[in-house]
């Protein structure tokens, strides 16, 4: 029983080596192992012999030739292929290249020009603004100077009196919600 199982295992192990052995590509050690098994196993020997005969039969399959139009048809298909794009093909057309270059030069020039303008009307407007702010500051200072509260040093140093001033108007929750809408 044991010897029968062992032989069957050897037959199964031979399966993956048989093709390699028959086509002469097996390594010497494997070839020796296969030959040893074949010498003692009639069924595997028969199978190996039939494999050889199958290979001989397969040699009888005639070769076909490509039709005479094969090459011409292939050349036509190749000719219809779009040409591969070279480096120069990736460059844009001269008109587009000029437009892009002009745009780049303009952007560089614009970025180099200082942003302060010296228009006369703008200068006079700025002068007027300075004069107006100066008059406002003087009037504010006069008002503060006349305040009697300044005579009381404690009030000035503690600043408690400032807490009596009305605070900035606060928005109601409804107004906040309305703003977020």
């Amino acid at each position, binding site marked *: 029983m044991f010897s029968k199982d062992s032989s069957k295992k050897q037959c199964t192990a031979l*399966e*993956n*080596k*048989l*093709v*390699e052995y028959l*086509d002469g*590509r097996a390594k010497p050690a494997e070839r020796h192992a296969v030959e040893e098994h074949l010498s003692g196993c009639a069924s595997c020997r028969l*199978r190996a012999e*039939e*494999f050889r*005969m*199958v*290979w*001989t*039969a*397969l040699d*009888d*399959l*005639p*070769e*076909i*030739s*490509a*039709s005479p139009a*094969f*090459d011409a*048809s*292939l050349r036509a*298909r*190749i000719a219809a*292929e779009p040409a*591969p794009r070279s480096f120069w093909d990736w460059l844009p057309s001269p008109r587009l290249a000029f437009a892009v270059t002009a745009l780049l030069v303009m952007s560089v020039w614009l970025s180099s020009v200082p942003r302060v303008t010296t228009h006369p009307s703008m200068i006079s407007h700025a002068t007027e603004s300075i004069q107006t702010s100066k008059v406002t500051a003087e009037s504010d200072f006069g008002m503060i100077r006349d305040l009697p509260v300044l005579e009381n040093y404690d009030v000035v140093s503690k600043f408690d009196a400032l807490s009596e001033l009305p605070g900035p108007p606060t928005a109601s929750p409804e107004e906040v919600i309305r703003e977020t809408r």
Partner: protein
Amino acid sequence: MARTDVQLMLDVKAGDQQSFELLLRKYRTPLVNFLYRMVRDTAVAEDLAQEVFLRVYRARQEYAPSAKFTTWMFRIATNLALNSVRDNRHRQLEISMDQSVDTGEEEQRAMEVPDRAPSVEQELVARSRSELIMKAIHALPEKQRAAVLLHKYQELGYDEIARVLECSESALKSLLFRAYETLRVELAPLVNPTVRMNRAPADRSGQPA
């Protein structure tokens, strides 16, 4: 000194059309035969072979000799053939489903008739030897068929075939054994006519992939 396939392909990459012509001349017949034996249709085989050359030509700019040229080329060919076989099988299935709707009665009658398929001996009379071989090859599962064709007719190495079929070498050897075992059974009357006559039907079952 003759240039290698890889050298020819690198020359094609450099823009040498003549090298492409050399590759075409060298592999035109092997490719057409491989594809014909895969799809069993001359016109489809030629169309697929042209597609292989076209893809090789298209890929010339990106070609890098990381593998043997034949491995690369037959990998393209095998993928195209397998896709074609599968597409054709779907088409055949659709046609047969349409026909089964139209001719339901005939189908029913055919099912009632006992197996009238001609015996292999009758087939031998009716068909030539090469047709029988071709039929046996075509009856193999596609991957086994490709493995046998690449092993027997293209004589590629095991490592090359394994790369073409995207499997391990040991899986390939097992695949080849099963394929030749099936062929041994199917072609028994050709290789040893007395074997089939004496063999019990249970011994004749093939082993699909």
